[in-house]
């Protein structure tokens, strides 16, 4: 009896199990296999998802070709001649276009050509040589604009696409990754930058660096090529969208970027300097030169002073100090703490406006 019971039990279980398994198999074969097909599987089965076509479609129409023309001074009746070539990104429906300053800096006339064939002549709203950015404006209906998200900073390793018009061969999309990000001195003292290995060449300047969603993450600039402007070595730079956007806002509001100036040159503190000047630590900035007509000279700062605090905050390094001074509105009174001959003193200074040196 016991054996029979066991047999029945086993047979029941097996039959029931087989039926359930059959049902399960039928159902899973009917349902699309979402959970099982990831990533690479789609490579084998058509590869439609593994393409940046969608991102390109979102952003590419808003990246325009920019031609800067200059009129021959000796022969002004001659037709305008092409002086500069670059790209630009349409940022808003009202026609503000971001590009590089060096693309348009010597232009007498600027022509912006959209991918749909429309051409506009454009005025310069404002330009900022320090960050190599310029804002142009065009008037047109149904302008394509680039999507962007200011709160989504690019990270090293992100896949990116560069859109521009290299060598004027027509709109070109190149792909790479973010190789580095940082706040480092490139040409201008304190510039935020993105580094990418996407191919960026002459003519790409002012064009878009987008992420795989098609959102703008930077403005490409071919001006800072390592080893000449031949490009192609996998080291190119872009200005991050957050910096570019804030500069754009300032250029639209004031026509220029107003930066504070102190009128000093400085160096970071090293061990030798700290010892000679008898400093408690290596924080602060050593003043190496003072502009005789600048705010620092008026306030009484002198070379060999060490600035340790600016507006009540510690000064960790030269770049940070220059950045904070630049962001102080001119005319503001600021207290600076310095160490002179071993003694800590406080100096009030009135920040002036930084004058861009003509290039």
């Amino acid at each position, binding site marked *: 009896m016991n054996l029979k019971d066991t047999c029945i039990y086993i047979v029941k279980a097996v039959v029931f199990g087989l039926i359930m*398994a059959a049902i399960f198999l039928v159902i*899973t074969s009917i349902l699309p296999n979402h959970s099982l097909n990831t990533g690479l599987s789609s*490579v084998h089965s058509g590869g439609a998802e593994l393409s940046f*076509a969608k991102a390109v479609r979102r952003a590419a129409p808003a990246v325009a070709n920019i031609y800067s023309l200059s009129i021959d001074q000796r022969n002004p009746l001659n037709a305008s001649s092409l002086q500069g070539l670059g790209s630009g990104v349409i940022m808003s429906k009202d026609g503000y276009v971001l590009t590089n300053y060096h693309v348009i800096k010597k232009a007498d006339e600027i022509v912006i050509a959209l991918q749909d064939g429309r051409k506009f002549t454009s005025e310069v709203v404002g330009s900022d040589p320090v960050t190599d950015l310029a804002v142009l404006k065009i008037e047109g209906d149904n302008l394509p604009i680039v999507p962007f998200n200011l709160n989504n900073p690019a990270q090293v390793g992100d896949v990116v*696409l560069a859109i521009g018009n290299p060598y004027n061969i027509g709109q070109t*999309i190149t792909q790479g990754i973010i190789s580095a990000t940082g706040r480092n001195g490139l040409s201008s003292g304190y510039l935020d930058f993105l580094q990418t290995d996407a191919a960026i060449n002459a003519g790409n300047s002012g064009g878009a660096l987008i992420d795989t969603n098609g959102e703008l993450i930077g403005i490409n600039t071919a001006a800072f090529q390592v080893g000449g402007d031949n490009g192609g070595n996998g080291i190119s730079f872009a200005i991050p969208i957050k910096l570019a956007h804030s500069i754009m806002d300032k250029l639209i509001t004031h026509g220029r970027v107003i930066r504070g100036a102190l009128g000093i040159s400085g160096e970071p503190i090293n061990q030798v300097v700290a010892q000679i000047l008898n400093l408690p630590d290596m924080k602060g900035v050593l003043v190496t030169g003072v502009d005789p007509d600048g705010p620092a000279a008026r306030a009484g700062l002198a070379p060999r002073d060490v600035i340790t605090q600016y507006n009540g905050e510690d000064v960790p390094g030269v770049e940070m100090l220059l950045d904070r001074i630049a962001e102080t509105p001119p005319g503001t009174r600021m207290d600076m703490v310095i160490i002179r001959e071993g003694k800590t003193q406080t100096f009030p200074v009135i920040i002036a406006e930084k004058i861009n040196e003509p290039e």
Partner: protein
Amino acid sequence: MKTKLSLLSAALLTASLSLYPAVSQAAIPQAVEGQAVPSLAPMLERTTPAVVSVAVSGTQVSKQRVPDVFRYFFGPNAPQEQVQERPFRGLGSGVIIDADKGYIVTNNHVINGADDIQIGLHDGREIKAKLIGADKESDIALLQIDAKNLTEINQTDSDNIRVGDFAVAIGNPFGLGQTVTSGIVSALGRSGLGIEMLENFIQTDAAINSGNSGGALVNLNGELIGINTAIVAPNGGNVGIGFAIPANMVHNLVDQIIEHGEVRRGVLGVSGRDLDNELAKAFGLDTQHGGFVNEVMPKSAADKAGLKAGDIIVSLNGRSIKSFQELRAKVATMGAGAKVEFGIIRDGDKKTIKATLGEADKVEAEAGNVHPMLQGATLEDNKKGIEITEIAQGSPAAMSGLQKGDLIVGLNRTKISSLKALKEALEDQQSSVALKILRDNNLLYLVLR
């Protein structure tokens, strides 16, 4: 209790049975921190044997005019030109498109002028290839080898690719050996570069260098989308701007070469220009892409099909046409007699027009009939003028100072752009005439007496 147990064992059995397919699907592990990491290796294992290296050797004949100062010393019997023969070697890549017949596609510029073509297969074999035919204007050549166990490349419709799709270049850069580089499709329908006579390139940022020419550009499935042909190289090497001839265009050309041993260029018989903003505005169009028909040649294929000046050609066989150059390249590579369907816009209305492409009549003339002093030169109509494609040594034409490659662009003070015009103009000139010649981008006059 028993029911519960039986349900439990049933569930276990269900699970164990249904686990089986799941395990088989996860055969290739490809995850880093939970994210899939694609590798091209499986695709490349199947594809790379279809890409070969092409090594050529031959003799380059260069002719140099003897400087006048030597003629002063050696008298009037001094030779007009010095013929130099220099052996050359070249390296490129090729793609096996038919494993049974041994057909290999490469660029014309890879094998141009070669006496010997050696194919290096992926498995190490080296086999001498025969040239079946070539087309200079599109830069495609077809070779054939006699070998077994070949792997051919997979085919696809290259009109389906999009800007932003991944692209993989396979070739033999700098003769290093087979090299795979990856990138994306940077642009489509690229023309107006002045690299080839007929241009309709796929542009890619996959690294392409010297020696990659004739190699494959494939998609992620390993299907051929183009033949790598050229790059923009301001400093000699790759800067992320490479060009490939679309696979569909290659197939059209190869089919003609197999059938006729040469490309019988299809001719539509229209001249035109790109549709641009101004034209679109003037014609009240909402599209900005297409080929604008300026003129329809009488009795041409276009004329017979009913195309008219002012029509805008926006598609060819259902594929959109972006520029006149793209239309030109596509039509010219389709082959004479091809039946095509154009989508056009006429007076604001969309229409379709069917046409059968005509054959290009190669205007080539024995130059002695044109002018006695041109005897010994072979003249051919070229886009810019009349090209001297061949010149017999010691012939009256050579004695007049004409050289191979010269382009006749004018006669006396009149501009001449066709052989027909040159003939007509010469008929009225019995005495000395001055030919305006373009040689190595320099303009010069040669007097025929």
